């Protein structure tokens, strides 16, 4: 019996089974996710490589070329100060996506660590969940205001105005948006903890750290993925709001949010100026959401292979 089993398992000519290969196979079968991946890769590519091909300066003011429509010199036209819209969109995208990804990374890391610790260690639960409640109850904007006021100058002096503000904004968004993730993860962990395989693992003397890394974390990966994708979207939007209030990047520093807000006054005359950054934000958020959706399916061993 055992022998035959071994034979059949070894029969496929392919390389030994690899978990990540299975994930990728499952991911590829999700059409939306593949489309999202392609779109996101295209956006990333144009934002990172684009400026090398289209080398116009995004902040160069050209008074003779104000409010122009699309043309050879300016494929997407110019804004009210004659700045090239294509260059601005690419420069803006670089900042917005960088802020979105980094802030999301930070918030997911915090949320996962806090959520798992609270769910897994009963003694930490009360303290950590009250901390989460505390952060949820904090009004976000006044808190950001205080953070910007306290740290803006030391940071811009230490790292230069752009990097300094980047760090500040990423940290500000990161530390104020981990709470939902933490709650979801804690809930999942609480349920997982009572499952038989955890009991089995514990009975053979698995240490808590191993338990988390080997058994708990892979099983809560899907909710984390979902909140990560949502997190990118909300980070991009929070950055826009901050820029609008004058708390974000310096005003001549293009980000998608700022492009959008700058153009709102002119929406009737030059609708493209609102639509372009709007489409860029929506496409990014949507594609990241689909990627997250596909990843969740692919990472879930119960769905995989069906």
């Amino acid at each position: 019996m055992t022998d035959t089993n071994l034979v059949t398992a070894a029969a496929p000519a392919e390389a030994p089974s690899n978990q990540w290969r299975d994930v990728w196979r499952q991911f590829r079968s999700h059409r939306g996710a593949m489309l999202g991946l392609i779109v996101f890769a295209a956006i990333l590519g144009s934002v990172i490589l684009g400026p090398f091909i289209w080398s116009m300066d995004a902040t160069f003011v050209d008074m003779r070329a104000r409010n122009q429509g699309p043309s050879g010199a300016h494929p997407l036209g110019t804004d009210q100060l004659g700045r090239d819209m294509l260059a601005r969109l690419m420069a803006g995208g670089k900042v917005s996506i960088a802020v979105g990804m980094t802030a999301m990374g930070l918030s997911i890391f915090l949320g996962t660590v806090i959520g798992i610790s609270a769910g897994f260690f009963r003694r930490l639960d009360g303290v950590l969940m009250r901390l989460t409640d505390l952060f949820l109850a904090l009004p976000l904007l006044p808190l950001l205001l205080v953070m910007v006021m306290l740290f803006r100058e030391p940071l811009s002096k230490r790292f230069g105005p752009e990097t300094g503000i980047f760090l500040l904004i990423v940290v500000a968004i990161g530390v104020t948006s981990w709470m939902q993730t933490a709650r979801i993860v804690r809930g999942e962990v609480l349920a997982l903890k009572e499952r038989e395989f955890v009991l089995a693992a514990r009975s053979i003397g698995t240490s808590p750290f191993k338990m988390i890394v080997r058994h708990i974390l892979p099983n809560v990966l899907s909710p984390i993925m979902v909140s990560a994708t949502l997190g990118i979207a909300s980070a991009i939007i929070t950055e826009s709001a901050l820029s609008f209030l004058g708390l974000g990047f310096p005003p001549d520093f293009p980000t998608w949010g700022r492009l959008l807000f700058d153009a709102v006054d002119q929406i009737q005359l030059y609708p493209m100026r609102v639509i372009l950054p709007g489409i860029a934000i929506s496409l990014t958020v949507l594609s990241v959401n689909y990627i997250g959706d596909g990843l969740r399916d692919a990472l879930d061993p119960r769905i995989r292979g069906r």
Partner: protein
Amino acid sequence: MKLMTLLLGAGATLALAPAAMAERGADGHVNVIYSQAPSILNPYLSSGTKDIEAASLIIEPLIRYDETGQILPWLVEEVPTLENGGVSEDLTTITYKIKPGLKWSDGTDFTAEDAVFTAEYCMHPEGGCAQLAKFEGVASVTAPDPLTVVVTFEAPKPFPYGPFSGGQSPIIQKAQFADCLGARAPECTDANFMPIGTGGFKVDEFRPNDVITLSANPEYRDPAKPAFATMTFKGGGDAAAAARAVLETGEFDYAWNTQLAPEVLEEMMKGGKGTLVNAFGTLVERIEINMTDPSPDLPEGERSTAMHPHPILSDIRVRTALSKAIDRQLLSDIGYGEAGRPTCNLVPAPAMFASTDNTGCIPQDMEGAKALLDEAGWTDTDGDGVRDKDGMKFSMVYQTSTNAVRQDFQAIIKQWWEELGVEVELKNVDGSVFFGGDPGSPDTFQKFYADVEMYANNFDGTDPESYLAMYTCDKAPKPETQWQGENINRFCDPAYDALVAELGQTGELEKRGEIARKLNDMLTKESMVIIPLVDRGRLSAHANTLGGVVLNTWDSELWNAADWYRIK
């Protein structure tokens, strides 16, 4: 039956039309829209422009300003001056002679007692009069006879035209407000909502924060005016909606304060229903230069104080170079269109106080600016595109409030300054914080933790004395004064202070104008501590069929609504 009546009515109108030309109420109805809605019609209980202007249709002051800032006798026979004896030699009293035969809209006589009562109403110690500043320094107001008002000041007053002047200080009727003194003032709803006045219109219905319905004042002093029998005064919405209602759709005849982007207004003008009118007051968009060092390396409490002069900007050549690099005409066209014009003056108006020969800054002179910086020792020795001197880089922080036009200005000016070889870091702060004056915040315009900053300011009325007096040494914001103070630049020149003191003791208008012009020049072209950019006007819109509109920035915009008529 209905058609018959209509036809009869039309026939009657046609027959009567030629005779009705010069009659009160002949032109029917007029619609006015303000993007902010009046909530009260008593300017003594509100300092809101919307309330003051709406009230100016109904109640009037003794003297008011015309569109050039000249004082006009309104309810008096002439403007009292030193020359005609209306102002006493020692500058402590001013005597008004009221026009005989004036009547309130309820038919009673308008007398000097009403003016005396108005002063008593506003100066009542228990009442929080919003226009108390107009009565500053007034010792007493008396009425020796029914047509004479004498205002006595506690000390010599070189500019005695505060009380009873302009839309902010009209005469209210004693009979109506007699029971509304002091703390009871806000309780008199009827009087506050429907004041009896001498103006061209009287209130029929007042809905706070919404609509006022008015009709022609039957007792108005000129029997041929106002030409309109009724008026609807609508409040609310925003500037864009108000402008559209006049320019594009023609639903309204007059819209107040339609300050929008030039391109947006142009688009609306294509509707062909209305015209924009603009007038210039004293509002000047400017760059203020910090004469003290705002470096964050300095300990808190010493930053941006007179203890440390600015390492770069203390040199007048550097300041002049920064000014020369700016093309003011371009800024004005882009930011304000018709409602702006380039200026080099801090006091751009009224004519008698405005320095006319100070126009040297208007043409942009990039080469001259570069030469000046070279001369001052700022050269690019390390070839990184930024000028330096003694190991210090020419780098500045340029801050302003968050506002679309200001951010555009920042981007443009930054580019010009970078062309000069100056490194510029832009910063914008939310307006409520920037102008909030909170001593705990590092981002207020008073604290000035930046090298240069941009905003606009103006002065009330037509006399710039207190405005120019802001720049004396003692008014610099500093930690000891909780960072309050109007001398934002920390400019300090004993000669300037002496001249301000002289202005405070000069009564003749000619001489005052001369001193004011000198003070203006000292702050601008002679020291370049203030870099004026754009003289910002007021922009309003009126229908093409509405005649007689004279936009006035020195008084209520509706100051001559009684003279409006319909162009047929």
